[in-house]
């Protein structure tokens, strides 16, 4: 347990991998490359200034992502003028309707199965590649709302305020995002390589 934070931030491999993770994260939220670059730059500058107070890579990473989240939230708040949240994107969700029968029951082959050891999978780098791919597969609006809620941990009132949407719209968009993500994870990760017994 000796990793030295200064060595870490001086380690170009660690720094560049951290930077690219942050950038990806910021772009996902801000949908704007240069605003994302700015946020990452500021967060990293803050981290480098205070590097001495951190003892482990994970602590640095958590802390830097914390700063980044704040920067992103600020930017989102400043974007009040942003295009009003357009009406629900029903067309792109036709595939979600197909999960259920007309009477609202699961289609037999779409019924969610039990996932084996999902929490252990969170330690697998491959799992996160799948997770990110599924995230990037969300329609833009759903991705934006989902990340505000789950990554930035903004509450419903804040999100509705920033995006100018109603609470019930918000709930529907979150539901669709989760439905889609769950489906994607199950199909591309949890069912992959598992044999039915």
């Amino acid at each position, binding site marked *: 347990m000796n990793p030295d934070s200064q060595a870490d931030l001086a380690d170009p491999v660690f720094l560049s991998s*951290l930077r690219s993770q942050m950038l990806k994260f910021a772009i996902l939220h801000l949908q704007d490359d240069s605003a994302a670059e700015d946020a990452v730059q500021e967060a990293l500058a803050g981290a480098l200034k205070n590097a001495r107070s951190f003892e482990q890579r994970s602590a640095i990473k958590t802390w830097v992502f914390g700063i980044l989240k704040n920067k992103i939230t600020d930017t989102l708040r400043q974007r009040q003028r942003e295009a009003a949240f357009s009406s629900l994107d029903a067309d792109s969700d036709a595939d979600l309707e197909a999960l259920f029968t007309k009477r*609202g029951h699961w289609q037999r082959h779409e019924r969610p199965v*039990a996932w084996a050891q*999902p929490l252990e999978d969170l330690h697998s*780098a491959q799992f996160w590649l799948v997770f990110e791919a599924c995230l990037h597969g969300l329609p833009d609006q759903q991705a934006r709302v989902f990340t505000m809620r789950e990554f930035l941990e903004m509450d419903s009132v804040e999100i509705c305020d920033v995006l100018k949407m109603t609470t019930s719209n918000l709930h529907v968009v*979150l*539901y669709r995002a989760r439905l889609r993500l769950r489906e994607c*994870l199950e199909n591309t990760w949890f069912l992959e390589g598992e044999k039915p017994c």
Partner: protein
Amino acid sequence: MLNCRGVTQLLSESLDRELSLSDRMNLKIHVMMCSGCRNFGRHMKVLREASSRYAVGEVPTQEEQSRTGERNA
């Protein structure tokens, strides 16, 4: 009576707001009988846990994982 579509929506909403007592009761009854929706509810929790780790960057990269692997080997 709630169908699976309604139940899954409520399971999602329960992550964002306090459900009413009758919603909670209806959920409980449905989930008891329906393994698909029961699994769905568990998956919502996994999604939330995964998201909160992702948000703070607690995600091993392949490069980090192979390094740990070598160390443990």
